[in-house]
């Protein structure tokens, strides 16, 4: 093989790699988009005030939990819940995803933000309860067909518990808005 044909081959291979990478880019960006926390109010937490570093960790982990839930429900991937969910919350959403997958259904959520107010932070620092007013657009799908779309102002009661080096969602229970 001559030098010219070699360099052409390399160029073509590089073009292919770049094109393939660009094709993947939108999906990657979509997966990485964070679930925004519009506000996080820990002032009314009882019986113990929340330390600043704890508040930051909770915000980071809760936002990440929503990010993974949104992706898990859209792509029917229960494994995405393992990092940020535990206990009942993980079981319930895993079950939801399993039945979605079984029926060829999915939910696409566009997350417009969360207003979180902490109501309880345990004296031993192991558990935290909060109310989350979430602004969501939910698209219900059967395969690629959109069954219905709605914009909901959802209110969740959330129980987070401290794990080894993060906070995990143990309860994520939607309640009627006040």
């Amino acid at each position: 093989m001559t030098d010219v044909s070699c360099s052409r081959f390399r160029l073509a291979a590089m073009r292919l790699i770049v094109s393939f990478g660009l094709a993947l880019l939108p999906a990657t960006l979509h997966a990485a988009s964070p679930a925004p926390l519009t506000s996080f109010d820990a002032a009314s937490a009882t019986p113990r005030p929340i330390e600043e570093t704890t508040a930051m960790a909770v915000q980071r982990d809760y936002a990440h939990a929503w990010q993974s839930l949104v992706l898990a429900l859209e792509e029917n991937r229960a494994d995405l819940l393992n990092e940020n969910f535990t206990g009942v919350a993980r079981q319930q959403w895993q079950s939801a995803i399993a039945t979605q997958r079984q029926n060829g259904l999915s939910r696409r959520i566009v997350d417009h933000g969360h207003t979180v107010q902490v109501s309880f932070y345990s004296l031993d620092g192991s558990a935290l309860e909060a109310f989350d007013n979430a602004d969501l657009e939910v698209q219900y799908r059967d395969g690629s067909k959109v069954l219905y779309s709605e914009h909901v102002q959802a209110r969740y009661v959330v129980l987070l518990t401290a794990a080894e080096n993060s906070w995990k969602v143990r309860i994520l229970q939607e309640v009627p808005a006040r």
Partner: protein
Amino acid sequence: MNSLRHRFVLGVLLALSSLCAAQPPVLDTVQAGAGTTLQVPGAGSTVLYLFGPAGVSKREVQRGAVALSGDELKVAGRYTAIVDGKSSAFFVTAGPLEKVSFIAHPSRVPAATSGAVLGSAFLFDRFQNLVLAPTPVSFRLAVDGTAGEERKVTAKNGVAWVQLSSGRRGGPAQFVASSGAVSVRRVVQQVAADPCSIRMRASRAADGNILVETAPIQDCSGNAVPDGTIVTFTSVDAAGRSTVDARIKRGFARAELPASSSATLSVATGVVMGNEIRWGGDQ
């Protein structure tokens, strides 16, 4: 039967639901596990989709009254039913309290310490839904044979908490959280606090050394300080300072200090200093 009693017609005409889109409707609620009925207008069959927080279903149904079983509606949260491109949502809320998840902290605590025992109780129904209605919860901490301490609180948003002082008597304290017929028990080991005071006496050993021995070492509530606690005996004389660390064994600590014709003997454990003895040549 219970399911039937609680079953009611939501009265939702799916065909009309889109008319209410401008204003958020007040959604109906169903108790977890009770089941309900959806009214699907028209004749013939159609496909009903039901999206919930712990499961979804897709099935062909005959129009009219469509029953949703209690099994489908066990988990609290929003459920969205979709038929013919129209939707209807309703909430499932927690049922009566059936389970208390109780976290007690710490597992060992010094006796007679103010606010040292913490408890948090989380209230759930039989399907693991958080019971958000205000619910009375009683906390009790006591060693057998003592009155202990009891506190009644009302759970708010499914959580009740308490901060109690440990009792004066050492031993395994039963820490109980109860609400209605549901009761959960944890054991908090109450151990002696720091020694209240320490007394020693000295005598000459057969080999001429100084034998020092404490009186029973107790905390201020009369609980024996645990065996293994270090007690330090010190002797200061013209030759210098000698120190011996001894462990409490069966409530006492004893040690031998080097022989001396004249010395000052002292004893300490933790932050507590004991008595001093001036050891003379004639003792």
